[in-house]
């Protein structure tokens, strides 16, 4: 197991966002987390990378319970992880190339020439080689997501977390992002956790799909089992509220 959550609860003030979450994700696996807005998907993702701490329970990444680590120890774990944010979260004062190079400049002893070579390679992977000197505000939403992905894979992490990578994109661009996620998983053998509303995307990229409903995991199956689930809540979600 590369990621393991044991009896995780998370509350904000008196509101319980996540209730008794138990989840294991294998090395090289792609898990999609689906669920309605406000069901706790993004909070679950933030717990996995230490942006939020659980109210109780354990969050194991490889051999470390990150819920117990201090910030410096957590940073060492995070070097092995990447994240693609819902709104890309690119540093708007830096060029595309500087965004991708950021982690390498901060945490490696590579020369500028070596960093430049890696940046070019990663931008090439996401099809944005010619946009290295653009500023983030000059890019479309889909391009920003791709830069965010290039930035996440620059350090060649073992785990990549995606927070709604296809939201707000047209179907063609969403398809491109899905292909990139799949390509990254196949080429770099990363373990991916993808929070999404997009069922086509979830079916395409995921080995398993977990559905969260009111803070609880109510289904954890492969795509076929989810499609044929007898749970009314699952059927309602995957059919967009139109139960057939």
């Amino acid at each position, binding site marked *: 197991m590369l990621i393991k959550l044991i009896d995780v609860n998370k509350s904000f003030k008196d509101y319980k966002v996540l209730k008794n979450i138990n989840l294991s994700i294998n090395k090289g696996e792609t898990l999609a987390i689906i669920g309605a807005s406000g069901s706790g998907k993004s909070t679950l993702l*933030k717990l996995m*990378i*230490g*942006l939020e701490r659980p109210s109780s329970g354990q969050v194991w990444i490889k051999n470390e319970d990150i819920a117990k680590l201090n*910030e410096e120890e957590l*940073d*060492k774990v*995070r*070097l092995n*992880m*990447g*994240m693609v*944010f*819902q*709104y890309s*979260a*690119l*540093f*708007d004062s830096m060029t595309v190339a500087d965004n991708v190079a*950021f*982690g390498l400049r*901060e*945490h490696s002893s590579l020369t500028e020439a070596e960093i430049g070579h890696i940046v070019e390679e990663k931008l090439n992977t996401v099809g944005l080689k010619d946009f290295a000197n653009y500023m983030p505000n000059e890019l479309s939403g889909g391009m920003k997501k791709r830069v965010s992905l290039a*930035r996440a894979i620059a*350090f060649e992490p073992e785990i990549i977390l995606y927070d709604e990578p296809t939201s707000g994109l047209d179907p063609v661009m969403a398809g491109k992002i899905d292909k990139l996620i799949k390509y990254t998983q196949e080429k770099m053998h990363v373990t991916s956790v993808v929070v999404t509303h997009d069922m086509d995307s979830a079916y395409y990229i995921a080995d398993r799909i977990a559905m969260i409903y009111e803070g609880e995991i109510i289904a954890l199956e492969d795509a076929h089992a989810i499609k044929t689930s007898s749970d009314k809540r699952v059927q309602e979600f995957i059919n967009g509220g139109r139960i057939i």
Partner: protein
Amino acid sequence: MFILEAVGSFVLRILETWGGFIILLFQTLKQCKRIPRMRYVLQQMAHLGVDTLPIVMLTMLFTGMVVTLQTVTEFIKFGAQSTIGGVVTIAVGRELGPVLVGVVAAGRVGAAITAELSTMKVTEQIDALEVMATNPIRYLVVPRLIACMVMLPLLVVFGDVIGSFGGWVIANYYDVSSFMYMQSINSFVVIHDFTGGLIKAVVFGSIIAIIGCYYGLNAGNGAEGVGKAATKSVVDAIMAIFFFNCFLSLLLYR
């Protein structure tokens, strides 16, 4: 009872805010053990210091002129025109220079720091820093604190010179000769009149940086959150500058 509750919650709010400033200051000092990249510090120095120079020059030029304008006729009445250069320069060096430069910088630099950091917060850029194993305080606050602590005294030096120059322009207009003006500066002004002002500037610089960063890092969501944070940052920094100036004046010039 209602009044007591209101007073109590006001005091608690003030204590919570100032506690937050102090905690951020200590967290920032803790992060200073690792030397920050000079490139980031120099960027902030240029952005926060050099770009503020024109407004500081204008403010201090007119302040020096107005102070002289208000005092020169009275001094001439009592035959004390030979002291005007010293009086204006001491006033500028000890109080007006550091305080007005501090207030101008709180408005321009403090608001800019808060707006930038709060925008980064609401667009998840600060989360992105953390995800990339980069401590936001080390990356964002430390360079701004150093830049403000270095650049504010430099701005005060320019402000003092231009303020005194403004005084000379008006004194000349009232037939106080340049020689007399300079002579009075030489006679009355001691180096401590300036160094005290520079010490104040270092303190004011750190106040502006810490308060600006605190409100930026703790901004609420959305455009409204950014606007509120910037306003609070400027108001609190200006109040803190006046408050600390009083104590520093007592300490430095008693």
